[in-house]
Every structure is written in structure tokens, then in C-alpha cells.
């Protein structure tokens, strides 16, 4: 009798345990789904077989296996063994596909930590592109609504490739320009013909753009209209593209970082957003400022002020600094009307601005002060802009028969170039990162710009310029 009672008691305890477990199960599943930790039935419907297998067959053991793989990865990295990293990152992310931090960490590790362990630019680029591919091709597939994943991907383009902190940044920019050229051709807006591709070549390039680079030409057009004109062969355009898609797909509460990427990338696009040349021999690109971005940038700042009133002071300061730069670049590119317009805007909105006051409210003095400061720094982008602007003005002076002025300007170019180069540390890393292109190359790029059909110069003016430079068109 007692034995039977014990059996009944055991059975009741068993049923109670099952009931309790069953009652909390729904709540737990709900929490997991809310926190983005579970691959739900809906997620698995169209998921690849490898992920379905990992999720269903391994069940709770996924965590254990993932831990083992993390430890192995960490150990191998400590021992400078990188050949398994791509595979291990693939497995780890497949085991925890909905944990966005896992994707971000793995991609960041490859693009930032592993890449700098190599000396050769091509080795570094391999790891940077692996990081991008992991997020773009896989991470977004499983986390299409996660702002952080979009932000990280956009950040790789804006910061790792777009900025100049890495010794190999020029090689990255070159590789990205070559990749994008394969898709959109040599025009900055070559994506337009890929929206409705009419030829076999265009269809093939559209396939490459959509399937390999995962970019939609229609969305590129939308981004260009909203934030451009962008040169899509440069990384900043891609940064803006991915941040823009993130804004459309993620929760409004998570979107601040995406907006910031767009603002910063737009500013970068203004500073060096014109691709002047892809140098296949030296495997680098020649960049120049893109003054067409000014109005767009100011509009973006205004929107930012409306979106984030709590950061009004900070955004206002950034806007003022940007407009200062814009005035300078417009002035140097001989776009005097626009320079004057924005200079007046600066005076009206920041009447107590130190730089404006120091220049006595005079545009020429203001620009001169900017030049003096610019040539005293080792800012490659700013010095290149100054050199291009001086050269441009010198060439235009030649057309206007002001040969003496042109000579003075070209001589000043030479001194600015030498002054900058003398300030750059002499090691190859710093030279690659901070050094200028040869002056002759910078000047020939300006010449090419002026001779291009869209420059607005008359054929006669071009002929005068070529004649004064002792060149002829055949040459």
C-alpha cells in the first residue's frame, strides 16, 4: 500500500513539475523573442538548411558548442593563426544568429583587430572585406531589422575605409572604387542604367550589384536624391546607403547612431567626395572636395537640429564649423557667389563667430586665414583641396591672360606642397597615410577637370589654356 502511495505521489510531483514548466514556457519564449534571442518558427521558415539544422537538431547544446568555438577562436588569435577565423566566425554566428552583438563582434574583430596584424595592404584588405561580407551577406539576412548591424556595416565604410587612420586606407579606397566601378562603371551615377538594365552588360552589372554587393540601384537613386550628389565609387556613399536602409527597417528608438553615420559621411563626402582618378599602378585613388554637397549638408544639419533639440548647442557648433569649411572650399574653387552667400549666412547666424570677427567680416581675409591655418597642418585632405583650388585659379588666370598671377599661384602651390611633405614623418606608413600625391599629378587632375566637357569652359578657353601650358590636345 505504502509503495503504491509513493508511486502516486511521484506521479503527482511529475505532473506538477510538467505543469509549472509548461506555464512558464510561453512567458520565456515571449521574452526570448522580445530580446531577439530566439530563432522563432517564422524566422526558420525561409532560413537556410544549415541554420535550421543548428537550431532544431542541436537545441540547447548550441550554446555549449558556440562557447567551445569562441574559446578556440580566441586561442588561435592569441597564437596568430588566422586561417580558421572565417570558418569559426561563420559557425559561431550560425549558432547564435539572432544575437546581433555576435555578428558585430565577429565582423569588427576581422576588420579591425585581425587586419592590422598584417603588414601588406592586400592582406589587410582581405580581412576588412571579410568583415564587411559577414555583416552584409549574412548578418543582415538574419537580422534585417537591427539598427546596430546596419550601423556597424556603415561604420566600416565610413571609418575603416573612408577615414585615414589605417596605413592602408588608400588601398582600401582603391579596392572599393575598383569593385564599385565593376558594377556602376566610371560614372558616379552609373547605377541609373542598372535600375532597368537594357543590355547584357548592364544586366550582368546589375546582377553583380544586387547579388554580390547586395545593393539596389533604385534605393541608391533614392539615397542620391536625398543626401547626394554622391560618388558611389567612394565608401561614404555606401555608408550612407546602409545607414539609410537601417533607418527604414529598424526601430525608431535605435536610429540615433544611424543618423550620425549619415551626417558624418555626408561631411566626409563634402571634404573628399570627388573621385578624380583611380590609379591602377599605385593602387590608390585621387580624391578632391565635392563642393556640390554644401546645400545638402546644411539641410541635413537643420534636420538634425529639428530631430535632436537636446543636442542643439553641439549640432550648432558642428554646423558652424562645417559652413566655415564650405565657405573656404567654395572660395578656393572660384565659386565666389556661393562662397559669399554662405559667408553671409555664417555672419548672420553666428555674429560673434571668432573666425569671422578676426577677418573683419571680409570674405577674402577669412579665406586667407583658413589657408594659413591649413598649410600649417598635416591634413592631407585639406592641403590637397588648397593645392587643387590654387591650381584651378592659376589655370583660370592663364585663360584670362593674367599670366603673372598664375605664375605666383603655381609657385605658391609648390611651396605649400613642399611645406606639407616636410612635415610628414619619413616612415613609409606615415608617407602612405599623410603624404600628398606628386604636385604634377594633382595639377594634371585639375587640368583634366577643366578640359572635361562638363567643366563649362568654351573650346576657345580650353585651347588657350592648352596653348599656355605648352600642351596640345593629342598629347
Amino acid at each position, binding site marked *: 500500500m505504502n509503495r503504491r502511495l509513493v508511486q502516486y505521489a511521484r506521479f503527482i510531483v511529475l505532473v506538477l513539475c510538467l505543469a509549472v514548466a509548461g506555464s512558464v514556457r510561453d512567458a520565456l519564449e515571449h521574452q526570448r523573442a522580445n530580446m531577439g534571442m530566439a530563432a522563432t518558427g517564422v524566422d526558420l521558415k525561409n532560413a537556410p538548411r544549415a541554420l535550421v539544422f543548428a537550431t532544431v537538431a542541436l537545441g540547447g547544446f548550441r550554446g555549449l558548442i558556440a562557447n567551445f568555438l569562441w574559446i578556440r577562436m580566441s586561442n588561435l588569435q592569441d597564437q*596568430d593563426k588566422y586561417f580558421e577565423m572565417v570558418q569559426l566566425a561563420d559557425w559561431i554566428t550560425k549558432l547564435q544568429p539572432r544575437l546581433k552583438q555576435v555578428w558585430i563582434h565577429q565582423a569588427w574583430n576581422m576588420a579591425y583587430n585581425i587586419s592590422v596584424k598584417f603588414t601588406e595592404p592586400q592582406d589587410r584588405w582581405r580581412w576588412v572585406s571579410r568583415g564587411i561580407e559577414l555583416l552584409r551577406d549574412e548578418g543582415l539576412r538574419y537580422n534585417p531589422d537591427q539598427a546596430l548591424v546596419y550601423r556597424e556595416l556603415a561604420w566600416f565604410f565610413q571609418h575603416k575605409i573612408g577615414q585615414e587612420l589605417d596605413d592602408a586606407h588608400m588601398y582600401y579606397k582603391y579596392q572599393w572604387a575598383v569593385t564599385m566601378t565593376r558594377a556602376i562603371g566610371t560614372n558616379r551615377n552609373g547605377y541609373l542604367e542598372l535600375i532597368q538594365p537594357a543590355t547584357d552588360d548592364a544586366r550582368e552589372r546589375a546582377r553583380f550589384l544586387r547579388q554580390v554587393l547586395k545593393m539596389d540601384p533604385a534605393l541608391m537613386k533614392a539615397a542620391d536624391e536625398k543626401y547626394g550628389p554622391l560618388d558611389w565609387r567612394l565608401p561614404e556613399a555606401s555608408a550612407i546607403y546602409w545607414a539609410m536602409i537601417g533607418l527604414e527597417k529598424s526601430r525608431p528608438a535605435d536610429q540615433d547612431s544611424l543618423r550620425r553615420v549619415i551626417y558624418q559621411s555626408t561631411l566626409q563626402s563634402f571634404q573628399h567626395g570627388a573621385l578624380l582618378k583611380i590609379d591602377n599602378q599605385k593602387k590608390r585613388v585621387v580624391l578632391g572636395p565635392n563642393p556640390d554637397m554644401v546645400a545638402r549638408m546644411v539641410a541635413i544639419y537643420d534636420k538634425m537640429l529639428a530631430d535632436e533639440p537636446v543636442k542643439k548647442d553641439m549640432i550648432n557648433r558642428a554646423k558652424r564649423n562645417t559652413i566655415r569649411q564650405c565657405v573656404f572650399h567654395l572660395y578656393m574653387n572660384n565659386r565666389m557667389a556661393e562662397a559669399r552667400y554662405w559667408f553671409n549666412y555664417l555672419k548672420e547666424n553666428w555674429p560673434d563667430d571668432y573666425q569671422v570677427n578676426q577677418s573683419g567680416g571680409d570674405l577674402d581675409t577669412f579665406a586667407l586665414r583658413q589657408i594659413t591655418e591649413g598649410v600649417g597642418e598635416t591634413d592631407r585632405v585639406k592641403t590637397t583641396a588648397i593645392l587643387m583650388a590654387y591650381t584651378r585659379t592659376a589655370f583660370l588666370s592663364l585663360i584670362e591672360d593674367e599670366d603673372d598671377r598664375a605664375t605666383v599661384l603655381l609657385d605658391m602651390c609648390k611651396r605649400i606642397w613642399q611645406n606639407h611633405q616636410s612635415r610628414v614623418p619619413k616612415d613609409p606608413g606615415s608617407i602612405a*597615410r599623410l603624404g600628398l600625391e606628386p604636385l604634377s599629378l594633382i595639377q594634371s587632375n585639375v587640368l583634366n577637370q577643366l578640359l572635361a566637357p562638363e567643366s563649362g569652359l568654351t573650346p576657345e578657353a580650353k585651347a588657350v589654356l592648352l596653348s599656355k601650358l605648352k600642351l596640345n590636345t593629342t598629347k
Partner: protein
Amino acid sequence: MRRLWAIVTLTWKAAFRYRLFWVMLGLLLLAVVGLPVLLKDDGTARGFAQIVITYTLSSVTALLGMATLWLACGTLARDIEECQIQMIAVKPIPLWQVWLGKWIGLLTLNAVLLAIAGACIAGLIQWRAKHLPPEEQETLRREVLVARGSLKEPPIDFRPIVEREFQRALKEKDIPPADRPFVRQQIEERVKAYYQLVPPGIVRQWIIPAGHVRNLNENEPLHVRVKFYVVRTNESGSYIVAWRFGRPTGPRRVPDIIKSMAAESVVEFTIPAAAIEEDGRLIINCTHAEDNVLLFPLEDGLEVLYREGGFGLNFARGLGVILCWLGLMAAIGLAASSFLSFPVAAFFSLTMLILVFSSGSMAASVEEGTIMGVDHETNAPSNPVIDAVMLPVFKGMLAVVNLARSFSPVESLSTGRSIPWETLGLAFVQVVLLLGGVFAAVGMIVLSRRELATAQGTS
């Protein structure tokens, strides 16, 4: 010998009868051919070859290892449980020969399967290599599909220097006896730092005996592998380091190299074998002008690799080391099944395997000097009693386990490093003769003394 051979043949026949041979062969070929299709490499031919060698060889070892343990436990335990062994026991063959015959049978079975799998892996890699561009083929041939020997600076004996400095310190100051070990340790650290740190403008010289490679063609490449740390990291993580080869004041046999190098990572560059002096020494000098201090660790700060032989024979030696491991597993399985039933023997063998895999945790505990951790407030071990008992046990177990684990053929093959004949010989002695011999002796003695008729049948 004929009797022994008969048992070997019976083991082989059983392997075919139960289709074990074909199933294993199928699984191995699936792993060898299938894995390279599924694996994601780093995008280089070298990375692909490395990951294929690592994963295919590891999976072949794992598959064969598990199968060997399972089969070794099954073949003897089932024979005993199903009373088939009694048919043999009445024949004029001692039971220790039955044990040995089964072991040789398993070992030869593994040898054949391993040879087939190994030939497929080598063939697959060579086939893939042939379809690569010539420069990638050259990189593979130079860095992975090769047996590279290693040259290093001989270890420096710091003891006499430390002792001399310590005695000088004793003369200069009155150091209380309680502080002396600490002072000695500080002096040792200082002496080591002197050898490891390279301030700007100071030359660090490595003198490496390379007499045995003096006859290399003078254009034959030597791969210098360098790893250094820096006191302050800069923005780019790279530093300019200048290298000179030979006596600093002597004639230049090889041009100097000035190179931007990433810190905290292995950087490899090539110099011709002409850099080796006529007296058989390779002298490497390093300096820099960075506003920084570089630290070259004594153990792996600088290593020179040279071509010692081809990939094929090196690969075969690597497989030989793996076969030694399989021989040990067969001995463990057979020894366990000599006195345990099949399920218990299998459990025992797997436990032994887990023990071997846990040796990393054991080594970490021994290195930290505690198993249960340290009380962060008092900095004393949390449970000194457990530590006092278990640490010596761990040390003993590690000493035994390391006899087998100290070989890493897969890693050597994937990084193009040579596995010398001495290493294979040492593996045979340590793994097969010593460790395997202990299990074999236990198994043979127990089986010979066991009353076979008392075994309980399972059917």
C-alpha cells in the same frame, strides 16, 4: 608467429564481416572530400590548404580514434561475453597472443584506412594546388606544402648572470633574508628585460647556430619570423624596423632590410641563405628609430625557417604520429575489455579520452597553483585542502598525458613545419611502447589470468 598472424587475420575478417571496414572507409572519404567543399577559408590558397589539412586530418583522427576505441572494446569483450573466446582458448595459443593479435589487427586496419585517407588528402591538395596561378603555387610550395626546419637562438642560461648580480646586490645593501627571494626574482626579471627590450638606436643581435644548413644553395630562401610588442602603441599599429645580417662591421653578404612591421603579430620576411656566415652562424641584427621600445620575447621573438624536405615524406611522418595515437587507443580499449563488459569498457575508454582532452584545464590549474580559485580579499587559495591533494594528482596525470599530447602533427603539417624522424621515433617510444605498453601489459596479464567461463553472456 603463425598463431599471432591467425588472430590478426581473424580481426581483419571480422572487420569485413561486420562491414566496419567499408563503413569507415566511406565515412573517411566523405570527410576528406566533403569537408573542403563546406569549409570557408580566408580567401588565400595558403589559407585554404591550411584549413583543409587541419580539418580533414583532425576529422580523420577523430573518426578513426572513436572507431578504434569502440572496436577494441567490442572485439574482445563480446568474444568473452558470447563465449566465442572459449573456442580459441582451447587452441594451442596463449591468451596474451590473442590480445596482441587483436591489437596488431586493429593497428594494421587503422594503418590501411589512414593511408587511404591520407593519400586522398594529399592528392586533393596537390590537385587543387595545380589549378592555382603560378605565384600562388609558389607560395604554397614555399610555406605550406613543404617541411620547414626551425632555427632559433640557443636558450640563454640566466642563472650565472642573476647569481652574480644578486651577490653584488648583497654586497651593496643589507638585504633581509626574507626579502632575498623577491630581490632575486626582480634581478632575474631585469636581466630578462635587458635581453628582450630594444630601445631606439640600440642593436639587438641574435646569433643562431646554422652549421647544419650551411650547404643550402645561397639563393635558397630563409624565412625570418618575427614577433614583437611595443611599450606604447601608435595609431597605425606599425613600426619601422631595420635589419642587418652578418657581423655589423663585416662585409654585407645580404642587403639590409628596412620594413614597416605590425606589432603583436608574426611578421615573416625572406632572406637568402647566403646570409649564413662561413663559420655556420646566422647573425641577425635589429634596430629602430621609433620613439618607442620594442620587446622581442625570448621564446618566440625571432625564428628562422628553412626548407628541410618535401611535403610528401613529412606528411607520411605526420600520419605515423597519428597512427601511434591510434595504437594507444586500441591498447586502452583492449585493456579495458580484458576485464570489463563491453558497455563498461567503452565508458572507461571514453572517460580516459575525456581526461586527455581536459588536460588543458588541468595544466591551467597547475600553472595557477590552485584548483578552486583564489579568495580575492585575502589572495589565499579558496580551498587549500583540495589543492594540496589534487594538485600533485593533476601534475602526475599531466606528466603521463603529455607523453602522448606533446606531439602536434596536424599543426606542424598545416604550417609547413618539419616533423623529423626523431619526433616520429619519440612518438613511437612514448606513445606506443611506454604508454601503450603499460596498458598492453595490464590487458595481457588480466586476460591470461581471467576465468573466462564465468563471463555472463548477453544473449
